[in-house]
């Protein structure tokens, strides 16, 4: 396994064909697939099943059908994917990734492809095609960076998500994603932490907070009647640097005087149904949050720092689990913790001392799902401005990474979309290359010491990958860790 050398940003990569052809996710075991309602193994008439499943996907999504027809193969997206930039495999060019699917679509669902397959790049559906789909659809982090550049609005993630669900329908699932979904279904969160363990963990965190601040600050679980239900990614309960961010959120809520609670039913913000491409799974996972909110009679639902969870919450939650008429309609439903924090800062309800973060010279990594999949606040582009506003309020030294690697054009961390799994380490390293190269610039030019993120996957990926690029694993920080540091708590 090799780490790509950091490049001068921006880069135009040279193609290395099939460079990533062997970077393959582990396949889910038959028992796991069956537990999730899929066939355990490839059925004998898999070809018909795949085509039927394709037809179904094409009929339930205008986006997929239109994207199949609309692509003019102009090449605008070809140098936009972080996996392609980092690894050079031609199939990791977004259009080529789509073409793995489109070529079959053309062969079986269009006149031109049925009559003149050689002319329009149509091809037979074979067992090899399924392997290619499995490999390369799981080398897409669903980050949508390519879609920002597409002149006709094609979003590759819609294609790869449909492709993943089609694969699942014939028993071919990605172990990581399906495993996580199974854990949420059976235990309640992605990390498989039972309620008793969660209680212990929260008690431990309360002690840590008391030691640090000298103030008893509660981390309540299942406290009925609380104003706010806080839903965070389960990694926040113990992973570094996630947990520091969680404690920051807790401090902010404490300082605000609002009552709040975690829920053991919804002890997970993440929704890997988005990654598996299954609307059914996404719905089941989302429903827990509504259930928890109803049970606990809260008035608001607030999501913690998690990228794709926020995308699902922001854009899908009402359709998946609505209506939310029992919540306080004066607040956005759902709300993001940064929206809460920025309101408190703007209305001066919390006191901040920036100088407490003077040891940090920070830059901000826009998490892809927040940047391109959701919004923050009431204004267009709030997902870019609010995190920066908060960061500038709590920190004296902030520098932007180069243009083209931030805001809507931000690079994925390299492990989103279900790719945060050890067997894909090579893919993850390569996928992080553009971000690491952009970071290198502000480290060299501005003396940046830390990169701030607001997504659990970004944080896990960077703390694992940054050492490969010559950084320390603790050079990635949670946004709310800095907020917590600067926050002046009343004794």
């Amino acid at each position, binding site marked *: 396994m090799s780490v790509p050398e950091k490049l001068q940003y921006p880069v135009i990569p040279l193609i290395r064909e099939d460079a990533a052809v062997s970077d393959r996710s582990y396949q889910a075991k038959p028992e796991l697939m069956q537990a999730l309602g899929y066939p355990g193994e490839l059925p004998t008439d898999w070809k018909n099943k795949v085509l039927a499943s394709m037809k179904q996907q094409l009929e339930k999504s205008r986006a997929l059908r239109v994207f199949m027809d609309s692509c003019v193969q102009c090449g605008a997206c070809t140098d936009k994917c972080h996996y392609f930039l980092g690894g050079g495999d031609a199939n990791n060019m977004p259009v080529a990734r789509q073409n793995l699917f489109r070529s079959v679509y053309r062969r079986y669902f269009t006149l031109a492809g049925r009559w003149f397959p050689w002319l329009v790049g149509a091809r037979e559906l074979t067992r090899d095609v399924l392997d290619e789909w499995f490999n390369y659809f799981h080398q897409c982090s669903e980050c949508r960076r390519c879609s920002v550049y597409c002149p006709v609005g094609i979003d590759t993630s819609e294609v790869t998500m449909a492709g993943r669900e089609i694969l699942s329908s014939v028993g071919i699932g990605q172990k990581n994603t399906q495993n996580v979904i199974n854990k949420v279904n059976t235990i309640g969160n992605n990390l498989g932490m039972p309620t008793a363990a969660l209680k212990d963990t929260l008690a431990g965190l309360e002690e840590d907070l008391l030691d640090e601040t000298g103030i008893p600050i509660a981390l309540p679980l299942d406290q009925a009647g609380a104003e706010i239900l806080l839903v965070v990614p389960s990694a926040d309960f113990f992973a570094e640097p996630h947990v520091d961010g969680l404690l920051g959120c807790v401090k902010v809520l404490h300082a605000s005087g609002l009552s709040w609670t975690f829920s053991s039913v919804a002890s997970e913000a993440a929704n890997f149904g988005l990654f598996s491409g299954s609307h059914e799974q996404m719905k089941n996972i989302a429903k827990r949050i509504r259930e928890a909110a109803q049970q606990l009679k809260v008035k608001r639902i607030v999501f913690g720092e998690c990228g794709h969870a926020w995308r699902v919450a922001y854009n899908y939650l009402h359709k998946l689990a609505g209506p939310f008429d029992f919540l306080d309609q004066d607040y956005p439903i759902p709300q993001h913790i940064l929206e809460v924090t920025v309101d408190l800062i703007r209305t001066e309800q919390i006191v901040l001392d920036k100088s407490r973060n003077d040891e940090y010279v920070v830059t901000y990594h826009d998490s892809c799902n927040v940047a*391109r999949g959701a919004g923050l606040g009431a204004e267009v582009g709030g*997902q870019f401005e609010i995190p920066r506003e908060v960061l500038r309020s709590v920190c004296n030294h902030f520098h932007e990474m180069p243009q083209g690697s931030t805001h809507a054009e931000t690079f994925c961390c390299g492990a989103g979309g279900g790719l945060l799994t050890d067997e894909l380490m090579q893919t993850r390293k390569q996928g992080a290359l553009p971000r690491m190269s952009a970071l290198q610039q502000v480290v060299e030019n501005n003396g940046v010491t830390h990169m701030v993120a607001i997504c659990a996957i970004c944080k896990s990926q960077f703390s694992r990958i940054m050492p490969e690029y010559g950084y320390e694993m603790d050079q990635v920080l949670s946004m709310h860790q800095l907020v917590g540091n600067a926050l002046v708590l009343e004794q």
Partner: protein
Amino acid sequence: MRAYPNPPVVSEQLLSLILLAAFAVFLLGFIARLIQYWRLPVPFNIPIMPAPKSRLGVLSRLVGETVLFKSLFRANKWTWVFGWSMHFALLLLLGKHLFYVYSVPPLWVAWLMSIGHWLFALFIFGLLGLLLRRIVVQRVRLISAPSDYLMLLLLIAIAVSGYSMHVGAAVNLVEVKYFVAGLLSFEWRELPADWRLVVHLLLVSVLLLIFPFSKLLHAPGLFFAPTLNQVDDTREGKS
């Protein structure tokens, strides 16, 4: 005396028939496709963020994409220069053809006629650029199917055959106009027998025929892309 002999194979009536049939296929196929797209469900909000918060904002986003090719501009300046030139010239060249529809062409059509040479040049510049890019840039070459090259060559051939009618002994445009007027009133009239016109019209027929079955569907497709046409209003409970 004619500068060019009559085309030996294609009779004028057959040519008119082909043209009409191609146009019918185009129209019906295109409408069928619109209906197909229209009826397909859109399960979720998937606008590419940041997205507009109002319908008016969406309109401006779509205008930005169709008129200025904003996303393409952000992606790649060369592709933008060639692609935009080609589409812009095509639009004006189509406008110029209204000469054959109006009995008395409006001033702007006459003006477009007068700058026809430049439009042709711009069109060819864009097409050749796109073709060259497809051949020279490794990334684009790798994703290109034969039809991707042929489509460009077809457009070049249409443009060259069209332009050639103004070179040398010009085709009698008034006769063409008379023919179109006939078509519009379902009356059979003769086309000037000139191979340049025959070639031009045959190629246009091919283009019309393949339109509803090919990537040329990107034209309506852009407007149907939920990524571009949706309003960012999910939290207001509007969708």
